[in-house]
């Protein structure tokens, strides 16, 4: 193990005991970038190494802990492409609120990470600048859309990262890359400065190597922000050391997310996890959420509808790429046609269709009703259970190119994570085992504002298992590809 393999809280302790210097930590991460980034391609922009080292301040311990930021979260003065040609030359003129909060702690931003264009996708293959590879097996995808952030942490080039999650975009890549990812309760983390995809579903959240780091980073970024009208003015989560006592806690195993379409090896992993929770004194029962099976069609109406409206702003007038055209309208249509990639266009077309006259009620309104049914399924389940569990992804990390030709199949990869966004709930994905040296994630879901409880349950599991200590064998990366 090198310094780049450790967690933030481990490194902070070593630094405070003066066993390592802050510069050594930062250099260890930069070294990882130099060695492995050419194969993994987790980043779209990397700050100058000298600048990163110079950002270390002796009296600011967090400045020694490099963080990677998904390239749809604005960092003033840095590029923000959303992995799209349409924003290829865009420089962020202001900081997202989460960045302002990280700056208060002097966190050291190492770079901006790759994503599916505008966060639309589950494999990071929809990036206009090429795909990111999974550090556990570079033939496979890192998941998406925050695949760059998850891979950056798994490869040790950053100690932790921020991603965004609209239908699983933090949790599924965390699962595929063997790290921890949290989708917070809707409204607890400001979306100001996050490029909007589907505003009623988007949340920013942490990607880390263990649950303690996740709780720490979440404590930095959560809290009320008047610049986001959907930010909730409630008492924020504050970090306190996790205990992991879950004796007597009631856990529901979601039946619908362990059925058809779930890889048997993933299912076996989750069943093993159930035994671990039982040994820890938790009470586990199966629970049925019947409307959950309607989540994918509901999501793939609502999310594109919101996206088609949000992405109207990319018209070649005020920023970004501009194509030619004799009239303003022709210029706009050409700009969007040439500037957006295939998946973004697909979703704009779909969203425009379901919102158009004559189809609004049959599709959009209908999906809003299902959103209500799905949310009430969860409400009922939480009357009986403290938390619910499921796989994070129904499959192991798949190979590059495997699902690109079939959008519907790619959409079905999100079955376990989508319902949580529709209901606005918090959920965390943690490593729960390995199959053929590929990580499997366990998803733990709680009622709104139950992050503190999610951390305790996840921490109890983590401390009873060895999976969070495992790191990809980067030295063994095959360079033949």
């Amino acid at each position, binding site marked *: 193990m090198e310094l780049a393999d450790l967690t933030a809280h481990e490194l902070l302790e070593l630094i405070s005991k003066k066993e390592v210097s802050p510069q050594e930590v930062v250099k260890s991460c930069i070294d990882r970038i130099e060695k492995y980034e050419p194969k993994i391609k987790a980043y779209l922009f990397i700050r100058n190494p000298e600048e990163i080292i110079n950002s270390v301040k002796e009296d600011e311990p967090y400045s020694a802990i490099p963080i990677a930021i998904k390239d749809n979260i604005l960092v003033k003065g840095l590029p923000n492409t959303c992995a799209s040609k349409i924003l290829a030359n865009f420089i962020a*003129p202001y900081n997202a609120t989460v960045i302002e909060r990280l700056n208060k702690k002097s966190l050291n931003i190492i770079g901006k990470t790759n994503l599916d264009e505008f966060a639309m996708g589950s494999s990071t293959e929809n990036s206009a600048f090429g795909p990111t590879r999974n550090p556990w097996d570079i033939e496979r995808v890192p998941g998406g859309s925050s695949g760059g952030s998850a891979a950056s942490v798994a490869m040790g080039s950053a100690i932790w990262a921020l991603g965004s999650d609209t239908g699983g975009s933090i949790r599924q890549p965390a699962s595929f890359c063997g790290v921890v990812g949290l989708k917070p309760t809707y409204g607890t983390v400001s979306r100001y400065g996050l490029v909007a995809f589907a505003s009623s579903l988007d949340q920013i959240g942490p990607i880390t190597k263990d649950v303690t780091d996740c709780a720490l980073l979440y404590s930095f970024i959560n809290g009320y922000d008047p610049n986001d009208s959907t930010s909730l003015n409630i008492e924020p989560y504050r970090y306190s050391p996790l205990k992991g006592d879950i004796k007597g806690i009631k856990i529901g195993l979601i039946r619908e997310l362990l059925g058809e379409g779930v890889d048997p090896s993933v299912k076996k992993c989750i069943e093993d996890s159930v035994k671990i929770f039982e040994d820890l004194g938790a009470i586990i029962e199966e629970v049925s959420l019947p409307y959950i099976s309607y989540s994918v*069609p509901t999501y793939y109406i609502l999310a594109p509808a919101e996206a088609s409206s949000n992405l109207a702003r990319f018209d070649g007038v005020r920023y970004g790429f501009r194509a030619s055209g004799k*009239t303003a309208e022709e210029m706009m249509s050409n700009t969007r*046609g040439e500037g957006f990639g295939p998946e973004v266009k697909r979703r704009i*077309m779909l969203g425009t269709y379901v919102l158009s006259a004559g189809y609004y009620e049959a599709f959009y309104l209908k999906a809003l009703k299902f959103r209500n049914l799905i949310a009430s399924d969860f409400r009922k389940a939480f009357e009986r259970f403290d938390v619910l569990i499921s796989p994070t992804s129904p499959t192991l990390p798949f190979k590059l190119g495997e699902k690109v030709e079939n959008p519907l199949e790619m959409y079905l990869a999100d079955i376990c994570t989508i319902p949580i966004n529709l209901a606005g709930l918090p959920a965390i994905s943690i490593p729960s085992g390995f199959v053929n040296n590929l990580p499997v994630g366990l998803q733990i879901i709680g009622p709104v504002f139950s992050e503190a409880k999610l951390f305790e349950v996840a921490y109890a599991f983590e401390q009873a298992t060895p999976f969070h200590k495992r790191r990809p064998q980067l030295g063994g990366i095959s360079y033949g590809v």
Partner: protein
Amino acid sequence: MLSIEEVLHIERLARLKLTDKEREMYRNQLNDVLNYAAKLDEIDTSNVPPMYHVLPVSNVLREDIPREIFSQEEALSNAPLKEGGFFVIPPILGGEE
């Protein structure tokens, strides 16, 4: 099955210029997704209220007090074409450039 005319109509509404090849591809793919979405017709939802938002808050407004956020220069810093403090675009109505 969506017709090509319908695809053209959506394309126009979305201000999104597609190629002939893309038009045919999206026609097929949108059909797949919409057919899949027909799964929602399995359940009678006539008595279910739509859920527009998960938060119990609405009409969040702030006082309309002017404040300095961007300078004109900053606001124009990413503009593809600008002149004299304005964004420059082609004519709104048809005609010569």
